[in-house]
């Protein structure tokens, strides 16, 4: 059977018709489904170096390139960051890793649709929302591994942290919310397009939003159109908050949490409507 052919139910009914007519109970065992999918996803991630290594290498290269190569920017007039330039860039790299862990899990979901696995999963799942939840757990686990490695390397290379323990916990909590933001967007795209060819559509907007924020220098040192864009970009709030928390000089923390939670609600709805679209598809 072609992977693109409609997946028949055990009774030979296409999944779309099954979804419209005899969908599995909405309040089935969501946690059981999510747990099974999460276990499979994490197991696959850990056993396949082609998945795990690039997701670790990229943030490390960014950290090396930005924190190592642009240190001189810390000497610019008007640049005052108590924890130093490595910590300044670490927050960007961590935010990026967090959102991209969500995106890469969206890629996995799209690939599972292409291979036909996700279709079979939708047929078998007692509660299909558990599928989205399971992949979200995978994204959080992948992010935790990446962030642990990036943090370790940053500390080994001399990153200073001047915030206190509560600040640091709050910074990582914000990063985990960003994982869900990235995943919510990517999963919504994956459920709608069900092909890995939608990859650029998943990552390009996130890439743009991240790089249209104060990546290299603080907002006050940006001039022209980038300053105008960065001033209204939610990623600026994420970076300001993260940098404030790591340095102990809080900046836009509440705004960043509100933005992140708002985006999670928005993209949560985007994911669930995408799931419905996948259910209705032939």
């Amino acid at each position, binding site marked *: 059977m072609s992977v693109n052919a409609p997946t028949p139910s055990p009774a030979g009914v296409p999944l779309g018709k099954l979804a419209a007519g005899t969908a599995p109970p909405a309040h089935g065992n969501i946690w059981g489904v999510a747990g099974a999918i999460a276990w499979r996803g994490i197991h696959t991630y850990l056993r396949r170096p082609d998945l795990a290594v*690039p997701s670790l*290498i*990229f943030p490390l*290269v*960014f950290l*090396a*390139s930005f*924190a*190592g*190569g*642009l*240190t*001189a*920017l810390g*000497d*610019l*007039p008007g640049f005052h960051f108590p924890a130093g330039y490595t910590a300044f860039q670490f927050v960007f790299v961590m935010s990026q890793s967090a959102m991209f862990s969500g995106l890469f899990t969206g890629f996995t979901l799209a690939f599972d649709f292409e291979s036909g696995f996700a279709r079979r999963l939708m047929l078998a799942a007692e509660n299909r929302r558990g599928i989205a939840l399971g992949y979200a757990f995978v994204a959080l686990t992948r992010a935790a591994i990446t962030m642990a490695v990036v943090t370790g390397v940053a500390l080994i290379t001399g990153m200073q942290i001047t915030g206190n323990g509560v600040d640091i916990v709050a910074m990582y909590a914000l990063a985990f919310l960003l994982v869900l933001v990235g995943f919510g967007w990517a999963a919504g795209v994956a459920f709608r397009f069900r092909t890995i060819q939608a990859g650029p559509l998943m990552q390009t907007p996130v890439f*743009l939003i991240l*790089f*249209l924020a*104060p*990546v*290299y*220098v603080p907002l006050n*040192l*940006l*001039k*022209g*159109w*980038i300053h105008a864009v960065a001033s209204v970009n939610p990623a600026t709030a994420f970076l300001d908050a993260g940098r404030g928390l790591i340095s102990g000089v809080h900046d836009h923390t509440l705004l960043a949490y509100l933005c992140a939670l708002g985006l999670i609600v928005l993209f949560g709805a985007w994911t669930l409507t995408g799931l419905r679209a996948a259910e209705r598809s032939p």
Partner: protein
Amino acid sequence: MSSTLLTQVGALARRGMLKTLRQPFQMFPIVFFPAILLAVNASGLRAATYLPGFPTHSYVSFAIAVAFIQGAMFSLINTGTNLAEDIESGFFNRLALTPLRRVSLIAGLLVGVMALGALQSFVYILLGLVAGAKLHAGVGGALVVIVLGSLTALAFAAFGCVAALRTGSGEAVQGLFPLFFVFIFLSSSSLPRNLLKTGWFHTIATWNPISYLIEGFRSLYIYGWDQTALLRGFGVALGLLAIGLLGVQAAMRSRMQRT
């Protein structure tokens, strides 16, 4: 070179060019990604021009050089992927069974890449002009930029061919993209080497040949005619091309034995 060989190379070069030009998903990143990265970096890093020792007041003029390297990187990916597709579909094997001379199988592809490399360099020069980059070396400098851009695209594409011939898989060729991306990041792409303060980074950037390629392009934009930078730039491009072609020769021999 005999006229038959020229005809064969010309036909395959035309096919290679059309194959890329007719696929929007291959053309789009060539223009879009360097443009967006130039816009973002030139704005975000404009403050770097205030650093003592920074060679120009225009960060766009400084950063435009990276676009040519990114373009060459896309040549690597596109050429390698197209060749791998031909191998996967069996087209390459069928070509090899025709009376075509073996050298023209790859030479045709690479000539097409050179022409496309010149075209994309011209596009980046226009892009730089629109963004406000000043080419101090003038019209003559623009021609040198096009020649160096074309040569760099050719050198990178040769590595794409090696990967395609060795693996026969488009996916494996795509896997080279991050590797070359790392080379760009760990170079003098964002700041001049005299302003790379972190010792280990400065050392890597100094040993990284991509730094000299970037500085070759950059010198024409910032200084005008800097003989040392240009010699190093062309030297690296030719050196990479020589290594790439040797790799192609060896990979081709091995592929033909399998065929």
